[in-house]
């Protein structure tokens, strides 16, 4: 789960990482009230989970309440790369002397944590990495040992941060690492990490991605989950406990297992179709799960045919077939369905499906043929 900037900053604050005083606001009046409380000048910042807010006009400096009113009115409701701004973050403006970069993430190749620090902050770090790789100090951290104060100090020196800022920056780096590990972040990034003209080091932005697998030990994450704006199909799928990713095609996909679901999308595209979604119903594939999956898929108006691709491993073919038949009794489906059922006891399963076969429910023995059939039906169908 990605956090909004203001949530990231609030999360940072729990671990003692200094940020500017600020408050979120959902209306112009709230924005003005917050700014009056915080003290001028303030910055009005659009809260969207996408980069390039500044260029899009989503970040504005305001010297008084009239300017806050003007900017908040313009920014609230603004569209930034397909994201509608529903909330702004009002924060005290900072006088910036220097802009740095700091982050922690997992290096999957090295199987260790990766810390990156740079004196070239405030710009796209990928670009710095491409044009001036020497400007980024990198260090792998063994998760068993953690990040020591000595290593942090060495890193900020290697990155060439200004001498007078190093002690504060190193201390902040250790806190950011604690936030990253104890806060179960996949990514904890500060860009820019600033030094103010009066010599204070603090986080001017916050990019935090939380590890969804760790949610069980973070009840406090519920408030973040509540503000997630999902595609309506994805929201419904999440409520039903399904692994779903919306795509922009017209063949609805249901498969058991993440790999097979990806593979099914690929095969549909190879035969000239376009997958409308990725959906993994997980192990089991019982009637309730199948009914939920069909319900989510049918809520997508672009879906003109549905391809159910099941490989029975532990789950036996006849159980899957019975599940599909039962699910079809529970959910009204407009689009024709093509089913490919293979693996353990597939013959028995196909026999059950054959009893229900029609031009709306077609059973095809192999994955490729089924993908072709579903694509043909989708291309010929009007809903």
């Amino acid at each position: 789960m990605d956090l909004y900037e203001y949530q990231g900053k609030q999360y940072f604050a729990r671990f003692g990482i200094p940020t500017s005083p600020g408050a979120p606001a959902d209306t112009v009046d709230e924005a003005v009230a917050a700014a009056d409380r915080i003290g001028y000048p303030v910055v009005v910042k659009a809260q969207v989970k996408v980069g390039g807010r500044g260029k899009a006009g989503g970040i504005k400096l305001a010297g008084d309440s009239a300017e806050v009113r003007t900017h908040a009115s313009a920014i609230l409701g603004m569209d930034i790369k397909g994201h509608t701004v529903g909330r702004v973050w009002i924060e005290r403006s900072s006088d910036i002397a220097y802009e740095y970069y700091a982050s922690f993430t997992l290096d999957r190749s090295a199987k260790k944590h990766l810390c990156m620090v740079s004196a070239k902050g405030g710009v796209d770090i990928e670009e710095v990495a491409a044009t001036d790789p020497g400007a980024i100090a990198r260090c792998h951290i063994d998760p068993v040992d953690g990040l020591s104060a000595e290593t942090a100090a060495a890193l900020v020196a290697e990155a060439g941060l200004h001498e007078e800022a190093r002690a504060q920056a190193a201390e902040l780096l250790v806190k950011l690492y604690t936030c990253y590990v104890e806060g179960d972040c996949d990514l904890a990034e500060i860009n820019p990490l600033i030094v103010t003209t009066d010599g204070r080091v603090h986080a001017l932005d916050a990019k935090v991605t939380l590890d969804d697998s760790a949610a069980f030990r973070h009840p406090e994450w519920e408030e973040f989950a509540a503000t997630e704006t999902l595609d309506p199909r994805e929201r419904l799928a999440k409520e039903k406990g399904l692994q779903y990713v919306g795509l922009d095609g017209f063949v609805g996909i249901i498969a058991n297992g993440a790999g097979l679901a990806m593979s099914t999308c690929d095969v549909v595209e190879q035969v000239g179709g376009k997958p409308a979604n990725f959906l993994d119903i997980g192990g089991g594939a019982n009637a309730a799960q199948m009914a939920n999956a069909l319900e989510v898929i049918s809520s997508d108006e672009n879906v003109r045919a549905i391809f159910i691709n099941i490989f029975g491993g532990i789950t036996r073919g006849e159980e899957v077939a019975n599940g599909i038949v039962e699910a079809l009794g529970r959910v009204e489906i407009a689009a024709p369905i093509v089913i490919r059922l293979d693996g353990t006891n597939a013959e028995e399963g196909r026999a059950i499906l054959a009893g229900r076969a029609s031009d709306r429910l077609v059973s095809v023995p192999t994955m490729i043929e089924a993908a072709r059939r579903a694509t043909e039906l989708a291309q010929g169908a009007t809903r």
Partner: protein
Amino acid sequence: MSVFVDETTKVVVQGVSPSSQGLYHGLRNRAYGTQVVAGTNPKRGGDVVEGIPVFASVAEAVAETGANASFISVPPRFAAEAIVEAAEAGVPFVVCITEGIPAHDEARVYNLLVRDFPGTRLLGPNCPGIISAGKCNIGITSGDIALPGGPVGLVSRSGTVFYQALYELTQKGIGQTTGVGIGGDPVPGTSFTDVLAAFEADPETRAVLMIGEIGGSAEEQAADFIKDHMTKPVVAYIAGVTAPPGRKMGHAGAIISGTHGTAKAKMEALAAAGVVVAQNPTEAGEKMAGVVRDLG
């Protein structure tokens, strides 16, 4: 021969109670012919469940039964601790199928094993397990889709595509030495490279089918290994050609970060290493049939 496990492997199932997933899968593995010699449960030491003696700890189970492999399917919040317990008890091969272990737990346990327990190999987590056709099955693979006798070794990140690939081979009459599911998480205990090295060293494995997916760079690392160290032919398939960037496709590790980890890049790296790259699992089976024919 098979890699990592064979008919002599003795398995302890961690977390056994009459209603546990561990017992359910352990009994299935036993029915396949696997030697399931023990179970563990801190509150049920001394019990016998379905003929399986239960011990309070893995260390006790190892001391009493000589178990040399463990099987873990406990919930995510207990999984890291269970893996460490097995390593501390000196178990050389640990299979963990648990899905949804926090990434930091996984990274910590991986590095702990590397540093303090180099004699323990972890397979998984979030994997289907391992099957040595006709000899030993630890995990959740349905045994009847595997065909004994070789000559193909199979290694996969995905579970269901692992089954699909086993089935494609079996349908064509091509046997397998061992099928290894390494799992779809960001920090797997056993990597493609580890399994490829084992297959290269195994005289009965004469060709390898490798199933990858988007995210990370394990397939690129495998391509480097194949180019430099493998004499045996490899056929590969990568799932997720159509996956959009920045989205987790079901598995925690299946995510394209920016332009990194795409299926296309992985397929190109493998092809450049001399691997036969297939576009889908069915084609992978067909291409492997051609490779096996050419082996004579």
